[in-house]
């Protein structure tokens, strides 16, 4: 094609430009179509009949961009439940400064590009005051520039990548009521040291940005606790046997394994351990708790793993915990703690919605910069996970710290608090 001369080249070029234009238009159309379909799904979960009746003012819109469909759809549902229950309580008590809250939901399908488009649309078209985020760290990381540019606060309730809240932006619009990889890594290392007596650990990480984020955290904290990382093994989603890699960690003398991956790859890792006949303790980030881990790994292997969480609906519950459990039972046909899907999503989202309502009340404005500042001056809030006393400061945008994390394990297909 490049060898063409004169008019022919011009003609070709014109054709190419025309083609590109058509492609752009098609892309635009598909985006619009994408938005249109997700608008439909947004209408369903926000129970507008009950909520608007509570107070008379014009509703304050809040956005949620999360995985509503796809392999992580369970997370989207659990977050929606937590946000909706909190919002209904707030609206029943007169809303925020006399105005009810309204949740507008968009599906990111775990795809960063879809999340970015949805965040922009929510802020520019729906005029939401704030956007809640979902499970996928890559989606939240990709949306950050939008929040910065449009000066709208973001509230993370699941995605744990360190760089979401510690993003280097000034002013920083990203807040979070969830785990932070960097803090999780310190927590898991301390557990391995204090409870398991390990001084040498092996890392088993999924080969993606999430694994990377945790590798940085582990490498930062291990020397501070005088612990040695004997090996870092990465594996891919879809690998069927990683015993060769795990064998390297065994030869390196690992006394505990720290694992970061979602349910399916984690199960492959556990099967490989069974193959090796190596009964090393495994301490895991929360990835496998969002899937069918016991089914995939086998009951016995699954029971060996200890996971971090931010909340469990088992054990003695506070009054708030009991009341929330009651509402989950009533509204979502949940029979007990064993039925609460992805409990961290619901718990984090519940507390986050209440903190956002307090910030809106404090700010007395929907203006992004004012609302952002208000997060630094919140009144004390007795939440589900803990009592939040000045949870955010200019240097810390993570409401939860290492002290708020808990350990759980699978028992008979249920996630129960770790018994020690």
């Amino acid at each position, binding site marked *: 094609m490049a060898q063409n001369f004169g008019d022919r080249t011009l003609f070709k070029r014109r054709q190419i430009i025309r083609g590109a234009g058509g492609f752009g238009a098609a892309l635009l159309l598909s985006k619009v179509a994408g938005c249109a379909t997700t608008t439909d799904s947004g209408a369903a979960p926000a129970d507008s009949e009950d909520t608007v009746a509570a107070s008379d003012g014009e509703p304050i819109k809040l956005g949620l961009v999360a995985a509503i469909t796809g392999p992580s759809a369970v997370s989207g549902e659990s977050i929606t439940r937590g946000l909706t229950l909190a919002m209904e309580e707030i609206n029943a008590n007169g809303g925020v400064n006399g105005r009810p809250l309204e949740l507008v939901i968009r599906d990111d399908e775990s795809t960063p590009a879809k999340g970015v488009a949805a965040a922009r649309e929510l802020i520019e078209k729906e005029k939401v005051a704030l956007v809640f985020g979902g499970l996928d760290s890559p989606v939240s990381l990709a949306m950050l520039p939008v929040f910065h540019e449009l000066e709208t606060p973001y509230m993370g309730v699941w995605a744990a990548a360190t760089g979401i809240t510690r993003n280097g932006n000034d002013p920083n619009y990203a807040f979070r009521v969830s785990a932070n990889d960097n803090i999780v890594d310190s927590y898991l290392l301390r557990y391995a040291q204090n409870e398991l007596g390990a001084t040498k650990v092996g890392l088993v990480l999924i080969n993606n940005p999430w694994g990377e984020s945790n590798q940085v955290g582990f490498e930062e904290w291990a020397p501070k606790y005088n612990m040695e990382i004997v090996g870092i093994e990465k594996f891919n989603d879809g690998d069927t046997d990683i*015993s060769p890699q795990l064998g390297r960690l065994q030869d390196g003398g690992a006394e505990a394994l720290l694992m970061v991956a979602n349910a399916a790859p984690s199960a*492959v890792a556990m099967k490989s351990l069974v*193959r090796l006949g190596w009964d090393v303790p495994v301490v895991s980030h929360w990835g496998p708790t969002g899937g069918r881990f016991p*089914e995939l790994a086998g009951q016995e292997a699954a029971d060996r793993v200890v996971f971090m969480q931010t909340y469990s609906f088992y054990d003695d519950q506070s009054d708030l915990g009991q009341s929330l459990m009651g509402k989950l039972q009533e509204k979502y046909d949940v029979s007990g703690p064993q039925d609460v899907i992805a409990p961290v999503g619901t718990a984090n989202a519940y507390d986050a919605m209440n903190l956002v309502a307090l910030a809106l009340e404090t700010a007395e404005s929907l203006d992004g910069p004012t609302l952002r500042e208000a997060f630094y001056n919140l009144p004390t809030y007795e939440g589900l996970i803990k009592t939040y006393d000045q949870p955010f400061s200019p240097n810390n945008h993570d409401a939860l710290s290492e002290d708020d994390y808990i350990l759980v394990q699978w028992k008979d297909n249920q996630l129960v608090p770790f018994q020690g």
Partner: protein
Amino acid sequence: MWSQLILSGIAVGSLYGLVALGFQITYAVSNTMNFSQGASVMVGAVLCYSLNITLGIPAWLAVPMTLTASFGLGLLIERFIVRPFAEGGSNSWLLTTIAWGIILENLAMVIFGKETRGYPSTWAEQPIQLLGFGVFPVELLIPVVGLAVAIALRVLFTRTLLGKALQAVSESHTTARLMGIPVERMIALTFGISTALAALAGMLIAPVSNVSSTMGTLLGLKAFATAIIGGLGNPWGVMMAGIIYGLVESAAAGLLGGSYREILGFAVVILMLALRPYGLFGQAQVKKV
């Protein structure tokens, strides 16, 4: 550690070999291949899971049912996805089979779901200790089945009348037709066998690697690489190439780390094609013009 590497390599490699045999057999007879082999692996696993686990049909019945259905699927693929596009020496079948694989994968996502499911099996619960390393019984079964299939194919091709007919078809369609051999039916038969082999591989891998709609994609690609390395000439070569490829991968993962597994594995493929374009066990073909 070496024994673990070798065993793990042989188990995975036999699986590549088994799927690669499917590529080999259709290529040998009709000069066409089914690039939806990876998806057929997934179909085998998903179908067997649905019959055995979801519907509760016992395994001894579910496995032959899956194999039969896959054989039928292979016949359909040949009739509607390959034959109309291979006529007149066109290469369009290459694209249509790839397209069909993608369709199958997405159909499975719609029907079976996007979530990975575990395949409970007594064959993959307790590992057997062998010379100090562990292995699940099903992983010992994979090489056994692979070698048995390679032998059976060899016998079929060299010792039976059907095999002679298949060989005749691979020599020349026109001559075979003149000899009264139903060429189209012979070719369809190879596609049926090839798809059934992929499904067999899918059922063998399901208990260790779980079942999902995307489980076959990479496996299909690696099997194709294996078929090329082995030389598309004979089933033995393809099976051996599969095992060698599995060992290379396993050694790369064990000695250098998991990130290097694919890098080294596919680098070997490129190197092989440069050094022996006709494959490890193939013979240089003289093309008469």
